[in-house]
């Protein structure tokens, strides 16, 4: 599906898109790269699109802290579960707790007007670039 024009999701931005059958996907722009995650938090269903982007605070031992990967984590607006925007893996249990991730990439409008992707709520213009999500 076509999530929207690239210009609509600037670096640091995000967009919530309807993926049909009630599913929602949130698309993030991380410094020009696009990532798409299911919007529903696997814990209790909070809307990840409404959360803040944050980073990793790590501590090799008590009292020694560093802040890394600023803006690369999304924190659920309800219970603060954090997920890596690039992988969908949770911060506290990355192996077992993940939010579904969908491949996303940019395509030129000229390549999209022929299909197969669909954009039901806006017209696709050949001269623009679009974010495409494989969902």
């Amino acid at each position, binding site marked *: 599906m076509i999530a929207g024009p690239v210009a609509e999701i600037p670096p640091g931005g995000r967009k919530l898109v309807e993926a049909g059958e009630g599913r929602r996907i949130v698309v993030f722009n991380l410094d020009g790269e696009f990532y798409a995650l299911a919007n529903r938090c696997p*814990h209790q269903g909070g809307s990840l699109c409404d959360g*803040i982007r944050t980073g990793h605070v790590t501590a090799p031992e008590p009292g020694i802290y560093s802040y890394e990967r600023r803006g690369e984590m999304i924190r659920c607006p309800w*219970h*603060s579960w954090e997920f890596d925007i690039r992988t969908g893996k949770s911060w506290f249990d990355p192996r077992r707790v993940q939010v579904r991730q969908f491949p996303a990439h940019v395509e030129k409008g000229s390549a999209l007007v022929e299909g197969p992707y669909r954009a039901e709520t806006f017209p696709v213009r050949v001269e623009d670039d679009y974010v495409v999500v494989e969902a």
Partner: protein
Amino acid sequence: MNVIQPIQHPGKPAAATLGLVDVDIHPRAKSIDEFRPFLSARWWEHLTTWGMRQRHGYTGGQPPFPKAQPMASRRDAWPPGGTPCSDLEFMRFQLLDNYGIDVGVLNPLQPSGQGDRNNGFSAAMAHATNEWQLEAWLRKEPRLRGSVVVPYEDSAASAAEIRARAGDPNFAQVLMMSRTAEPAGNPRYWPIYEAAVEAGLPVAFHAFGYSGWAMTNGGWPSFYIEEVSEHATSCQNQVISLVVEGVFERFPGLKVVLIECGFAWMPSVAWRLDGHWKHLKSEVPHLTRAPSEQIRDHIWVSTQPMEEPERGAHVLDICEWSGWDHILFATDYPHWDFDDPREALPGIIPAERRRDIFGGNARKLYGF
């Protein structure tokens, strides 16, 4: 009191066939000006000149730790231009209508005047908070019930406030905090229990409060995660004190609700007390019934947050030991640790038990 007819609703958990009752909702005034009509000129001037001065070390009356999210709230619970749960329309949309809640019980936390060092001001603010609940919420929304906020360090003023609300079906319970200046069974608080029993209202202890003491036996902790874990231990003190001081012997009609304190700890407190009681009866000769029986008969607990052991069977054990008929559902809306009714209860709990937790138990307790 009006008896509810559970509404059919797509957002409601399927098991909530006896209704969905949320016993922990936290309304907040948009600004302190909302209290002005309910305060005398004398106390309004006090408030605007001196502000609130809760009994709380280090913090000037503010919560001592940053709480996970701003105003300890869900980030999606901020209405346009307002603070979380300050707007009835928005709250209806996001909570009551969204989940098909039949009855929601309000527990106003801040500002409420509870724990203020000035007893007169504490009483005036508690009274104003109750008037504000009526005006801003209860008269406008029949699904909501209020809590009689009391200035609990002044039991005479508290009892007067309870008696003034007796018989008003808008109020479902009396509200205290889990941290009090002395253990809650101390006779100084008995006039509160006496008035509550007279009025037919349960007494709820909500986690948190302003005792003036450090919140752990080892002093002030370093992290919020320690404070939020302490909610359970703060109630352990209160349960033990209520039992051994003989409060339930003196007031057999008293019903106590513990809100936001978990409950997996309660069976162990009961077993431990029973064990000691066998040997130390002569120290507390006024106790004629085993502590565990008193706890089982007089204390109700709420689900948010309920402890979630890894093995589901252990959830069932905890509920069995705590009393299936004494567990009440709570969302804690709009706070960050909110529970979604469709997701909150562990899947292993059988449907008829869910039905009771969602609605049946609260309806029996409160008479909804």
